[in-house]
């Protein structure tokens, strides 16, 4: 089976999912930060609620697309999913727990607002925010595994050491890089939302500036952990490292060149840092906040493309080569491209409806409300 269509669909769904997930994680933390500030500064209460409403509205998309990734992966690459679920049993359990706690605590945080003591509500908010981190904490092991399949000892029959898999050296920098990236994107999304809101309510302007600053500053630890990740790849995933640095390291063997995406991500990150700080000092210039969101999403997409396309034509990197994508592709059935294309088109159509509604809900319903 030709792998182009499955890879395109997986890439598309993954990017939509990751965009919303990252925004949501950051929004959750910013809402809790503002909620905490509201204990001493009542003006922070309103933006805290607005930011959280933003999260609630978008969480659905990330959840739905998360489920899609599981089905797309298991449908197109069943053996890869089987290997991952056996070897990464513990991390996936962490993610599942995270999902349950996250969704239920979002509901609890939403509906207990002003109905329980503020400190109890803040505690629920902390559970909500941190459970958001638990989800990538588990799933990022899959990415670390396909960069460097630690713990796998045999493919037939599948066997491995689940504890050794936890010690994957690629994982810690990848996870931290993800965390700081998520916080950055989410804070910048909050900054843009509050900037729009400040057209009517000037009191939220400074909170937009704070979010811009925090989102911008997160680029610093993200950059440091990114450098850590980059250097770890040179040891444990040399093929991917070579794809990232092909023009600079021509001696290394890689069939892909994703250095432009990699460099693009780095450059965008620098711009985000500068604009984020600038917005803090001049929050009345709303356009800086507006531009930060697409910039941060572009940086995320560039980073993911560099990471995932850089692995091709392999699905799992083993040293300077790997296991090709075709090895894992589903050959149990003939998958009609028309079925896949029509299904994905319907999904995208309803997603477009949702985003339109989200726009109306956010812009007209929340951000401009008095």
């Amino acid at each position, binding site marked *: 089976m030709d792998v182009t269509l499955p890879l395109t669909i997986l890439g598309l769904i993954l990017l939509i999912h990751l965009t919303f997930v990252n925004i949501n994680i950051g929004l959750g933390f910013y809402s809790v930060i503002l909620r905490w500030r509201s204990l001493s500064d009542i003006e922070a209460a309103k933006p805290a609620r607005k930011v959280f409403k933003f999260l609630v509205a978008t969480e659905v998309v990330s959840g739905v697309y998360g489920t899609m990734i599981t089905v797309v992966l298991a449908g197109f690459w069943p053996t890869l999913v089987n290997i991952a679920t056996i070897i990464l049993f513990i991390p*996936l*359990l962490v993610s599942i727990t995270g999902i349950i706690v996250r969704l239920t605590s979002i509901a609890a945080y939403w509906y207990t607002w002003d109905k329980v003591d503020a400190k109890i509500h803040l505690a629920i908010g902390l559970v909500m925010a941190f459970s958001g981190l638990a989800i990538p904490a588990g799933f990022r092991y899959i990415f670390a595994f396909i960069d460097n399949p630690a713990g796998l000892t045999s493919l037939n029959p599948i066997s491995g050491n689940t504890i050794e898999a936890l010690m994957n050296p690629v994982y810690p920098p990848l996870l931290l890089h993800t965390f700081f990236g998520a916080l950055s994107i989410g804070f910048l999304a909050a900054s843009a939302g509050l900037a729009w809101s400040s057209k009517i309510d000037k009191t939220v302007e400074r909170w937009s500036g704070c979010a811009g600053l925090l989102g911008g500053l997160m680029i610093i630890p993200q950059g440091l952990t990114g450098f850590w990740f980059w250097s770890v790849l040179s040891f444990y995933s040399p093929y991917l490292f070579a794809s990232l640095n092909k023009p600079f390291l021509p001696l290394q063997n890689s069939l892909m060149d994703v250095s432009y995406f990699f460099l693009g991500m780095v450059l965008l990150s620098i711009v985000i840092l500068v604009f984020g700080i600038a917005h803090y000092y001049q929050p009345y210039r709303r356009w800086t906040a507006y531009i930060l969101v697409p910039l941060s999403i572009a940086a995320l997409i560039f980073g993911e493309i560099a990471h995932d396309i850089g692995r091709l034509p392999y699905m799992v990197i083993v040293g300077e080569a790997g296991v090709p994508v075709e090895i894992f592709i589903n050959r149990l059935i003939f998958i009609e491209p028309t079925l896949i294309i029509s299904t994905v088109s319907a999904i995208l159509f309803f997603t477009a409806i949702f985003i339109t509604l989200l726009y109306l809900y956010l812009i007209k319903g929340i951000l401009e409300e008095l």
Partner: protein
Amino acid sequence: MDLRGILDLSALGIYMHSITVAIVIGFSVTLTIIEFLGIVKRDHNYMKLAKQISLVIVIAFVYGAATGTLVEFGLVQVWNGVILGIGSFFFTPLFLELVAFTIEATLLVALLYTWDKFKNPWIHWMITITYTAGALFSGALITSVNSWMQAPWGTGEIVKTIYPWAPVYGPLLVNTDFLLSVKEALVSMKVSSTGSGATLINPTVLNTLTNSYDELLKDVWVSLTSPYALTSIIHQLLATTIVGVYWIAGALAYNGLRKKEKRENYLRLFKTIALVGSILLIVQGVEGHEQGLMVYIYQPTKFAMIAGLEKSGPYPAAGLTIFGDINYVFKGFDYLIQVSENHPNPDLKIGGVPVKEIALADTLKAFEKLPLVKTLYEVKIGLAAVSLLISLIIISSFVFKKFWRGREKILFYFGLAMFFIAPAMAGLGWAVREIGRKPWTVYGLLYPEELVTPNPIGIEVVLTIIGGLLLGLLMTFTTIYLVLKKPPRFLKMGEV
């Protein structure tokens, strides 16, 4: 934890998930009807109830998504072997399920936030009915996946080759050599105790098989075209809807009994919803016959279990409805064991084990479940008879209005009873469906031990799953309570 414990844990997960499924599906059907009546009658109370129902659906949907994720991961993580099915027999329904899920998720948000936003209220109702269609579509697709495991449609005579009492499961749409090779490897692994069969779902094995035999499945729509699936979809959706409808009716009955001053209003709403539930129950009674017929045709061991047929003999209820003869003699376990002993292919072996031995051992394992399944089924049928009686009583309140004047409290008590009876019936029905297909996970083809993860399931996993489910359930009901007590202002519901 042993296999028994893992099966129990999975059952717990599915049952807890089904609570939210009943709310999401049953409440959405009720919401569609109530909103329709509210618009037609221009009745504020109907609209207020519709808004309340939509709020509960949103909360249940969130929790349902969480527990659904748990069930989904349970499938791919604890029952890894099922991945083989996801890549073949379940591919189409699960892909379509993504569309249904997207429709549900997007329209649910639209539904909640567009109350009173349109000048023409029918526009909102169109969102509601489309959402409901999405929820029912989703339920239908998942039921079709379960149904394939009950009756593996498209496998032709393959099951019959191993179990001589088995029927033919439709036209042969699978690659027999491929499937038997997989079965051969699984049985060999089981016999030699070298580990879980799930570890064989790897690129080396599957690519070797596809290189040798080509694709496993020729028709990707197979799980949606099976007669067993079509009947099950109607049966399961009706059962789920009935539970949801009676939960709303029960809540209204409780309020009607508690709040004397608003009793008239609650009675009106209760009677409308209870009427819907009663009609659905009667329809389910008719449909139950079709489901029973499917079990009789496609699951001989399960039929013998529910009919309590240790020995062949009459089962009057089925004899009358299927053949019009209460004395019709159905085949019991004595017959199933006998034909296994006199296997038509005594020399055939799978994984070095004679099929005769496999057939006999598995038929005896199924026989062991007879007392349990029979008891569960009889209790279920008993409850169904009681609920049918209650349904007729509720319907009578619309016909004999004078008789019921002053006796409304009795109707409320019946509503409260149905609040518990309806889920008990559905739960027992599901237990019969699931336990009745044992000792197989895929009837006649695959055992649970061939699909389970090779990883040990420790106490930490059990605690995580049970803890997560309980925490989620607790938070869900707390949130529902809080939200119904003080609804969001944007819904403009006023005093509740």
